[in-house]
């Protein structure tokens, strides 16, 4: 308090001090003399400038790494006095990001084209008469950029004031509250009061489908959604209609957003104009716990963040991964979460004599299975791993059934005669990011738009950027890039292999040709012959070289790659038709009619989907959001899921159930911890242990596969995925997916 009094005394203006303390000797003004005024030499001594102040080193925004493709071509600009080296062609905004200064923006997005219409990124550049839009201005060498001067600050306040003028006061009811760019930037860069006393305009809401909720009054016309739909999703549905303050973003005619990437506009919209309809009014973002995990609805393994509150998964957001999914996820990935709440198996059950299930304890269920499995012969035991199984549980299943004497463990979707020998025969050797370097694509029996939407987005990115040519063999389909429909079946393939087709010359002249084969071809009887034809095409087109491997297989399910890596190859292809004991680990898409009526079926899974109706014993397991599991995506990158929510009821992890069962059955597996399983996997397929890594393959099937005498059958290629929205147990249980498939599928 005493110090405060001193401070307040010091703060009193000097004039009043003069009045209070009258000067002595009648002097009304104090005359001071400084050394400079006394002699010229002293002033020269003072004239030396202070040494330049030490500028603290700066790091680029968000820890980004700056890549200078041509070190000689780097130019130097000054951001707030700090010199920074950037590649030629970068904009002023990107140069400021390299220097660690985050400039506010609404319409600029680093994956979309530059619009420059929000004007929030205005900064002052020396020698420029007015502030420049940093997102659009290329940085020239020697430019002096100032981001914290009064002009820049006034510009930002002004722009913010204009943006808020017609923006409704919806924050309490708007879903974007808490993660809204407008809120954050107005707190950081806006002024504290507005001067708008007129009536705000309002805009009619548009119906974009069951996924995207629109409140168009909140729209600030940044056009990010229009550019996303045009460029990345490839559907030109959204546009800017009208002009001036009556501008509206809409589809003009009533059109639903049917693109499989339509959910990404929810992330992209900086305000609450486009939000997630299923997530509307459910939670605020600060209540949610985010868990970084991997998506398993398709084989891409997009990186996601599961936002959960307590035991419930409330929404799924994408995570940045430049190599796999950039920052987009497909609609199926984003909205399948409500299937995790429905049709869950939570207690072990045994089917009684009357055909009805009865909940029992784990002890009883495992004891029953252990008893039955000893009554059948080893060649009558069959194990089938499902689409969503992780590597640890598949390893445990294979080990357990091998120890019981069975060699018939397989995975769904790999066909009857999977060839798991050479890894290059079933993964995307080019890598998803590597597809950007390709200049000719040959799609054989695959429709990437419905099978792996992120791979399709990458192909579209390449086609847009470099006008790559795409040839497609399969049933007629609409894709969001220009492609040449070469044919519908194996005849075209034979023509290409023998060099008779005109597309062969395109392949030969290509610098980096890429062949993408669909995993739907695994199910064909003549798969060996088809693959050898494709390998001939690859050899003729010089697709596989030491510096470029363009031979790719696009898998359909999350578990396929790991299953083939672990060697889940059945010894006899039709073993299931003569089986007496069938162990289905999440396998819902096998043909249940193949199972003989007297076979004992154990179903271990998390949803009561289809196979449950044939099962004799149900063992509840946890879903991908509740367990830590290793998944390998279609390009061979190993990723791990993390548990976001606790599991349901009495369900356990898959591998733990198998381990317990093995003990009850008398063939105890030698590991009982995750580390133990991983060491075991390390002796089978060591690449499955190195997480977030992609192991390149050494030997290619084009040279190493033995010749086959199979004849190609004339049947045309079919569609591997009939309904994009309903492909596995989780999506089939989801209400949102049911709505989507009713409203959004193109008939």
């Amino acid at each position, binding site marked *: 308090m005493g110090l405060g009094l001193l401070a307040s005394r010091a703060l009193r203006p000097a004039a009043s001090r003069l009045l209070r303390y009258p000067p002595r000797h009648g002097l009304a003004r104090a005359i001071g003399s400084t050394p400079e005024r006394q002699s010229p030499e002293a002033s020269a001594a003072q004239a030396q400038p202070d040494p330049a102040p030490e500028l603290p080193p700066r790091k680029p925004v968000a820890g980004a790494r700056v890549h200078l493709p041509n070190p000689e071509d780097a130019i130097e600009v000054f951001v707030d006095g700090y010199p920074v080296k950037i590649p030629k062609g970068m904009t002023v905004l990107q140069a400021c990001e390299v220097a660690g200064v985050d400039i506010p923006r609404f319409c600029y997005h680093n994956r979309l084209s530059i619009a420059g219409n929000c004007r929030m990124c205005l900064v002052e550049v020396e020698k420029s008469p007015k502030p420049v839009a940093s997102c659009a201005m290329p940085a020239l060498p020697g430019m002096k950029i100032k981001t914290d001067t009064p002009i820049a600050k006034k510009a930002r306040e002004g722009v913010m004031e204009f943006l808020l003028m017609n923006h409704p006061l919806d924050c309490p009811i708007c879903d974007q509250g808490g993660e809204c760019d407008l809120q954050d930037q107005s707190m950081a860069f806006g002024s504290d009061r507005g001067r708008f006393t007129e009536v705000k305009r309002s805009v009619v809401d548009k119906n974009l489908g069951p996924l995207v909720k629109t409140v168009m009054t909140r729209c600030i016309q940044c056009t990010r959604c229009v550019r996303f739909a045009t460029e990345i999703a490839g559907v030109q549905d959204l546009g800017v209609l009208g002009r001036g303050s009556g501008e509206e973003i809409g589809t003009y005619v009533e059109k639903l957003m049917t693109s499989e990437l339509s959910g990404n506009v929810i992330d992209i919209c900086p305000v609450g104009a486009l939000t997630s309809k299923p997530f509307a009014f459910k939670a605020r973002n600060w209540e949610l716990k985010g868990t970084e995990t991997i998506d398993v609805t398709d084989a891409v393994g997009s990186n996601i963040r599961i936002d959960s509150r307590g035991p419930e998964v409330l929404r799924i957001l994408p995570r940045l991964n430049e190599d796999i999914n950039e920052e987009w996820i497909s609609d199926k990935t984003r909205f399948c979460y409500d299937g995790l709440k429905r049709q869950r198996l939570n207690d072990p059950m045994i089917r009684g004599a009357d055909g009805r299930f009865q909940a029992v304890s784990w002890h009883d269920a495992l004891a029953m299975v252990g008893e039955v499995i000893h009554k059948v012969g080893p060649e009558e035991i069959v194990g089938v791993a499902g689409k969503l199984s992780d590597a640890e549980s598949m390893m445990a299943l294979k*080990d357990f059934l*091998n120890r019981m004497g069975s060699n018939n463990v397989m995975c769904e979707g790999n066909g009857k005669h999977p060839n798991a*020998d050479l890894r290059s025969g079933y993964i995307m050797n080019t890598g998803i990011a590597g597809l950007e370097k390709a200049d000719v694509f040959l799609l054989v029996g695959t429709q990437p738009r419905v099978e792996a939407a992120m791979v399709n987005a990458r192909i579209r990115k390449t086609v847009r950027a470099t006008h790559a040519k795409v040839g497609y063999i399969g049933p007629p389909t609409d894709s969001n890039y220009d492609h040449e429909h070469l044919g519908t079946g194996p005849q075209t393939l034979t023509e290409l292999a023998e060099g008779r087709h005109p597309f062969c010359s395109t392949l030969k002249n290509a610098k980096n040709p890429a062949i993408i084969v669909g995993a739907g071809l695994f199910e064909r009887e003549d798969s060996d012959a088809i693959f050898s034809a494709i390998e001939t095409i690859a050899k003729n087109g010089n697709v596989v070289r030491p510096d470029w491997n363009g031979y790719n297989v696009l898998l359909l399910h999350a578990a396929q790659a790991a299953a083939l890596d672990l060697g889940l190859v059945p010894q006899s292809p039709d073993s299931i038709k003569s089986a007496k004991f069938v162990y289905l680990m999440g396998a819902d898409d096998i043909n249940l009619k193949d199972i003989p009526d007297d076979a004992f079926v154990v179903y271990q899974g998390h949803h009561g989907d289809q196979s449950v109706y044939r099962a004799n014993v149900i063992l509840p397991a946890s879903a991908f959001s509740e367990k830590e599991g290793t998944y390998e995506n279609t390009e061979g990158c190993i990723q791990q899921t993390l548990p976001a929510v606790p599991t349901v009821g009495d369900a356990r992890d898959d591998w733990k159930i198998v381990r317990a069962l093995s003990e009850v059955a008398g*063939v105890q597996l030698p590991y009982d911890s995750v580390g133990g399983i991983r060491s075991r996997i390390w*002796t*089978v397929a*060591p690449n499955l242990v190195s997480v977030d890594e992609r192991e390149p393959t050494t030997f290619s099937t084009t040279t190493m*596969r033995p010749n086959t005498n199979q004849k190609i059958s004339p049947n045309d290629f079919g569609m591997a995925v009939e309904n994009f929205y309903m492909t596995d147990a989780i999506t089939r249980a989801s209400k949102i997916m049911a709505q989507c498939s009713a409203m959004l599928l193109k008939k």
Partner: protein
Amino acid sequence: MAWRGQLTKNLRELRFLFCQSSPASSSARSFVENNYKELKTLNPKLPILIRECRGTEPQLWVRYDFGVEKGIRLEGLSEEQIFKALKEFAKL
């Protein structure tokens, strides 16, 4: 070399693990490169899994019935030695 076609009598699975680039695995790599096609043509039903991973020691694993597995390290072994080891495994 008739035993090469009889591998499926006793073996259920054959696995070659090696590193893509290290010199220790070079003999394993060349063995696979030279002999995989022949072995597979003679035993089309036998899964011969080739698994490469950076930093792995070269190993050969075989699996018999009832999950019994045996493996040896292939470091420093020449092609004939690897064949001899395989023959040993196939007999048991």
